[in-house]
């Protein structure tokens, strides 16, 4: 192994040099044998009047880290000189368990992984599995899934709005957003029976069709929800404190954003109009009329504007989906994959055999792989599944958008104040369940 100067995370190290360009701290070089020896210290630079840097640890158990993220900060007074994130404190081995489950059994795992976008993940997994099986779903199921994903986007952005406002100091939007979120929970609960961990889809269809009267409740929600968005907009968008605390923080240029792999609202806030629903469409999103909000500077304020605009666009999509909801079956009529209805299973011998085979051995996709990207509230989300013909996938890879967004936090927060770091961290909208899988 060649001797490499192990100045860790070199991209961070801009502030490690003093005026003459010599590293103020002697970098440790990893010797050939892996032994780490402090390199010969450069000439002792003059006493550093700014005083020693402070090393503080915003640890896994902290209200402002939105979960069990740990940030080790080297502070010069209040200014963040270097930020070293540590993740993995919520690593629960999702991908390993996926290799021991049949396809329909993995769906409950997709709720618990990104728990703010549970029903959205169910749909994403179902789409990926259906491509692996080579099935095209019924029109009614397509529109139902669009509704499910948009409701989930609204619910997820509301949690982001609530917690970001608490971090920056405004408590009321938290209560407003959770009030609206309870209404989304009611809708999901009537549809699937669970508030948050819905497991609403199956490979080839949905777990249940929507109850009657559900569309009226949704129509009522779509009609009254924009009032709350306007209220939040009126309260925050031109609020002196909010603007003062968010404008110009953690700005990422368009090229940096693309190179650092940001996706979703972060990428669009930096000016790159990449939305999976428009560029790599699924579920007939190209037939819906909605805009993709794009920011200019890529700072925390633009991300806030983009997400609030996305709330409005999701409401528009929900309204259009309500208009075009067709009748007809929800599940695909393919006995290889979808359980036959109970009445047929009990009466007709053929269906009973299919039912038995399906339950005991599970559906077997052909050998192959599939990766369907979906626009989750945090960015491009996708499940890459590799099958070797058996009922359990060989590999179930979850593409974690918020992990890659979080990996850019050292670049975003260096040179800003400690309180700005909290605002930037909130603006990335991280979900530790998805980051650590």
């Amino acid at each position, binding site marked *: 192994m060649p001797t490499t100067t192990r100045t860790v995370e070199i991209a961070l190290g801009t502030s490690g040099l003093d005026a003459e360009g010599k590293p103020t701290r002697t970098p440790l070089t990893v010797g050939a044998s892996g032994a780490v020896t402090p390199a010969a210290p450069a000439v002792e630079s003059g006493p550093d009047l700014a005083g020693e840097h402070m090393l503080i640890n915003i640890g896994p158990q902290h209200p402002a880290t939105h979960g069990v993220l740990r940030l080790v900060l080297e502070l010069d007074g209040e200014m963040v000189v270097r930020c070293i994130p540590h993740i993995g404190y919520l690593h629960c081995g999702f991908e390993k368990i996926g290799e021991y489950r049949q396809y329909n059994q993995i769906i409950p795992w997709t709720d618990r992984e990104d728990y703010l976008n549970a029903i959205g993940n169910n749909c994403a997994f179902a789409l990926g599995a259906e491509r692996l099986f080579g099935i095209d779903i019924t029109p009614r199921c397509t529109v139902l899934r669009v509704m499910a994903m948009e409701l989930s986007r609204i619910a997820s952005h509301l949690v982001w709005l609530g917690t970001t406002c608490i971090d920056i100091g405004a408590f009321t939007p938290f209560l407003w957003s959770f009030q609206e979120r309870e209404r989304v929970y009611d809708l999901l609960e009537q549809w699937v029976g669970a508030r948050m961990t819905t497991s609403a889809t199956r490979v080839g269809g949905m777990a249940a069709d929507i109850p009657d009267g559900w569309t009226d409740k949704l129509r009522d929600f779509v009609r009254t929800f924009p009032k709350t968005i306007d209220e939040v907009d009126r309260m925050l968008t031109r609020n002196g404190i909010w603007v003062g605390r968010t404008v110009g923080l953690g700005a990422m240029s368009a090229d940096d954003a693309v*190179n650092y*792999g940001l996706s979703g609202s972060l990428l669009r806030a930096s000016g790159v109009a990449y939305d999976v629903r428009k560029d790599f469409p699924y579920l007939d999103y190209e037939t819906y009329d909605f805009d993709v909000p794009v920011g200019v500077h890529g700072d925390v304020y633009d991300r806030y504007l983009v997400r609030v605009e996305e709330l409005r666009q999701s409401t528009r999509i929900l309204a259009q989906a309500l208009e075009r909801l067709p009748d007809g079956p929800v599940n695909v009529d393919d006995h290889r994959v979808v359980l036959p209805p109970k009445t047929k299973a009990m009466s007709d011998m053929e269906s009973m055999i299919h039912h038995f085979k399906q339950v005991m051995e599970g559906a077997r996709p052909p050998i192959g792989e599939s990766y369907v990207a979906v626009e989750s509230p945090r960015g491009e989300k996708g499940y890459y599944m590799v099958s070797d013909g058996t009922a359990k996938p060989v590999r179930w890879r979850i593409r974690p958008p918020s992990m890659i967004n979080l990996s850019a936090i050292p670049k975003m927060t260096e040179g800003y104040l400690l309180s700005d770091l909290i605002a930037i961290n909130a603006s990335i909208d991280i979900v530790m369940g998805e980051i650590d899988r």
Partner: protein
Amino acid sequence: MSVAQLPGSAAPDYAPVTPRQLPYMNGTPNPSAAALRERFPDAVTRVDVIWGETSVYVDGPRLLEVVRWLHDDRTQRYDYLADITAVEFRDPERPIEAIWHLRSLPFRRFLRLKVELDKRAPLSVESVWPVYKSADWMERECYDMFGITFRGHPDLRRILLWEQYKEGFPLRKDFPLRGRFSRSEQLKQALAAAPESRYSLEELDIAQAFEDLPDDMRRRLAAGEKTGE
């Protein structure tokens, strides 16, 4: 809030539509596959299209060169690295496949690069961090889960598990689902992981700025003990 076109993107050659009735094996390959085969005839070993997604098998040592060309070439412009992962198959002879998912935002194309790593030789492949900064954590996670070392990565450490994790690489097929040790042993090791192991080498290096770093830590650090694998 104007809906801006993608920066510097050619007019989209087709209005993207939800794919329907995708053929299983012989779909239309991504044009970049042909360009790659023509540009790197010896590096590209195989191209196959499954469910409409193009996978290009690339020769390991030439990977960084291929990725750099895909990223820099004006006709390709694969400027977005979606994912880096690896797949180990159930039959022991089949090599482990390292997977790169690349996207070209201006041309709206999706490409999957694969490198086959023989299980018997040490798993090691070129790191694409010099080209895509997003590869940093993905490669660290791939190392943490599969044990594939990425040459040229600035700081290859475990990212999801703690650095003193002794049970091996979890996503390998020979790793039992509940781990190799008994539950109490796992708990004992987790609780006993030495405190300074929670701080990466660099943080200890910063902490050396204080004179009062506990002297046993400093002695071990100076003696060259390295936190992490």
